């Protein structure tokens, strides 16, 4: 079922565009140029992030962190290997992607850890970034309960990701 979602979406939007006498091919290419610009700005950050994460892994610090967090994570059923991802995810989006990619490579994309990491990345957002950008731009200083509520949503995401991977495969 999910196999046909992306191809179907592509067929649908190209068909709709043609029906409206638009030019889907050049629109796709035009949008793609913007996407490529985004990639270029992303490259140096990802290089720095992966350098530091690979160093953490090689030095054994990641294992220590996992072992340190294992009791709490085990209690909730979250794989302790994902400790660094859980800590980094609310703070930086590209760092989370870098940590996630490293974890998937280390444990295998289709292992339980690899799949949990993928679901976690797909179903959570960079909370601190979102709050600071949205409220910063609007000049909001008293954020009241926004941070606790948003972190609660994040935590639920990590928790449910660990469960759904086991239940839904």
């Amino acid at each position, binding site marked *: 079922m999910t196999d046909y979602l992306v191809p179907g979406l592509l067929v649908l939007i190209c068909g709709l565009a043609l029906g409206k006498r638009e030019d889907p091919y050049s629109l796709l290419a035009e949008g793609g140029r913007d996407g490529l610009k985004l990639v270029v700005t992303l490259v140096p950050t990802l290089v720095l992030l992966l350098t530091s994460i690979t160093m953490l892994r*090689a030095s054994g610090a990641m294992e220590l962190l996992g072992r340190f967090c294992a009791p709490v994570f085990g209690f909730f059923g979250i794989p302790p290997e994902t400790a660094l991802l859980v800590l980094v995810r609310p703070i930086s989006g590209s760092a989370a992607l870098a940590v996630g990619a490293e974890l998937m490579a280390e444990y295998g994309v289709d292992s339980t850890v690899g799949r949990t990491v993928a679901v976690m*990345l797909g179903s*959570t957002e960079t909370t601190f970034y979102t709050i600071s950008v949205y409220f910063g731009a609007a000049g909001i200083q008293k954020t*009241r*309960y926004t941070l606790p*509520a948003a972190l609660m949503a994040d935590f639920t995401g990590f928790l449910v990701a660990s469960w759904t991977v086991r239940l839904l495969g």
Partner: protein
Amino acid sequence: MVMSWIFMGILLISSVCALWTGRGGALSAAVMEGAQAGISLSISLAGSLCLWSGVGRLMERTGITELLARLLSPLLGFLFPGTKRDPVLAGHLSANVCANFLGLGNAATPMGIQAVKRMVRPETPRLATDQMCRLIVLNTASIQLIPTNVAAVRVSLGCGTPFDILPAVWVTSLCSAGVGLTAAWVLGKLWKHD
């Protein structure tokens, strides 16, 4: 500046850790390996970012985002009562939620900022209102139809079925949005304007 301190911290922690566990060789190899992995990750993301930016452009032009916004308006009216009186706010909000739903994070942010600016109350310009908190929670729960970046990373690591995690992703984001919104509702009752 914050990132500089974090980077410094990571360098220190790994160096001390490697010294303690005697893994100096692995650590120095990791520096070069990591830098290379950064480039590989960027390349594995490049294709999907490129394609998906194009798809986003096309969805805007064909009116799919508008259609989705119309479908979502009852739900938005329930979560954000202000949209009933203010059609411009309703427009910004639905554009933000739709862009997030379709995985176009870069398009979602400016719309979200516009929405928050419009929700500011003139009497209390610096105070976050209940509606703003709900908007942030909805954004951080990341209800997304197709998480393309994750799928791209999975493909680059040799996964043949990158989208088979979708049901799990959907269930998870719906749960986190539900819990987040409930938490916001409960906290909103307790945490009155100060």
